[in-house]
């Protein structure tokens, strides 16, 4: 790929998805866009760039953005964020929302559904305490293609073996030939919507817990700051945001502040700094 073509693709992707590609990511562009070329009958990456230069929004343009922004995911990825949800965030939410009995969770880079379904399975484990509650998990992603797979809830044997404890596999999945389908009970807890984080998401409403993991790393600093500030706007005053292990708000925005107690967890500054640990625990979030 020529320097000019790479520069064009870098600018093109940044403008459309906020994806920030360093020069070292050239291999990533080549490996992910070559299948797109094959799919659309385009001979080379140079031809693809030529087509993109001339075209406006359409299936090819969407496929290019989706191919570059689709992230690897698996059930209970990195484990710690899900231990935190089960042991801290969910119990606190149950205490804090006991009067309204309503809980809204946003999985902001839902990809093929493993993250929101993992959260749903953990909520299901606490079902005894949540009878009569209205619980909604909203999964969003830029890619309509991955959301389609998420909605189907069908996973290969390889996919269910990565991270999913076997007890939960047996409990929440049924076999469909060589694949595994998530149970309607778990699937019904999650709704999916396509969303570009660069665009407004106020229409999604307010959330108590936001999981936005491993997506900001692809954005440049001003874009990260903008997305974080807008997440803060849809976060309940006592809500919590979990970012990926390599992500932070520090140096980007004051709209969210580290929880101080749990790595990767952020809250509105007033909540984070308000009181020492025992008071915060007593207050729920």
């Amino acid at each position, binding site marked *: 790929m020529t320097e000019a073509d790479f520069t064009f693709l870098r600018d093109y992707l940044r403008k459309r998805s906020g994806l920030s590609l360093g020069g070292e990511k050239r291999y990533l562009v080549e490996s992910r866009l070559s299948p797109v070329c094959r799919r659309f009958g385009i001979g080379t990456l140079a031809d693809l760039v030529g087509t993109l230069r001339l075209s406006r929004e359409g299936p090819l343009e969407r496929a290019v953005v989706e191919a570059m922004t689709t992230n690897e995911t698996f059930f209970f990825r990195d484990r710690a964020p899900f231990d935190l949800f089960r042991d801290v965030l969910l119990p606190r939410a149950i205490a804090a929302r006991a009067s309204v009995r309503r809980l809204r969770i946003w999985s902001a880079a839902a990809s093929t559904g493993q993250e929101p379904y993992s959260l749903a399975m953990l909520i299901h484990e606490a079902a005894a305490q949540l009878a009569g509650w209205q619980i909604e998990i909203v999964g969003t992603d830029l890619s309509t293609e991955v959301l389609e797979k998420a909605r189907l809830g069908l996973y290969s*044997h390889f996919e269910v*073996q*990565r991270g999913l404890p*076997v*007890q939960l*596999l*047996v409990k929440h*999945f049924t076999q469909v030939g060589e694949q595994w389908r998530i149970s309607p009970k778990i699937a019904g807890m999650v709704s999916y919507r396509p969303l570009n984080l660069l665009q407004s998401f106020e229409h999604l409403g307010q959330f108590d817990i936001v999981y936005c993991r491993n997506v900001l790393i692809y954005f440049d600093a001003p874009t990260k700051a903008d997305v974080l500030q807008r997440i803060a706007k849809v976060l309940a005053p006592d809500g919590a945001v979990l970012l990926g292990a390599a992500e932070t708000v520090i140096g980007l925005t004051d709209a969210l502040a580290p929880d101080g107690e749990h790595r990767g967890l952020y809250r509105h500054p007033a909540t984070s700094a308000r009181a020492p640990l025992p008071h915060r625990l007593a207050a729920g979030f």
Partner: protein
Amino acid sequence: MKTASTRTALIVDDSAVIRKVARRILETLDFSVRDAEDGETALAMCAEAMPSVILLDWNMPNMDGYEVLRQLRQSSRGDQPKVLFCTTENDVGAIARALRAGADEYIMKPFDREILTAKLDQVGLATHPSEAA
């Protein structure tokens, strides 16, 4: 400097190929590895020194994995190993039966390093990827 591993694994499988593949992966994950080609040998090895984890094949001649697991879990020894059940069957009935017999996790064969690493993490035997080849 790398210290001698205190984590031990026992691979029980009648297939020499599977034993070889599993050994190679486990050694890169810093396990000290032994292997057995049948259930009786495996139980004898366990009586001698209980490993941290056993990769146990389901279908073996003479004594199958289910029987090995049953005998292992019936013993009164306090140093019970984690048991990853290895099978080519992926039906939910076989998996549920293995769990009832006392398996901690299962692995569908043929497995690779990534899957095995994930399963070891799940049973609390966190791996050391930085030391891996």
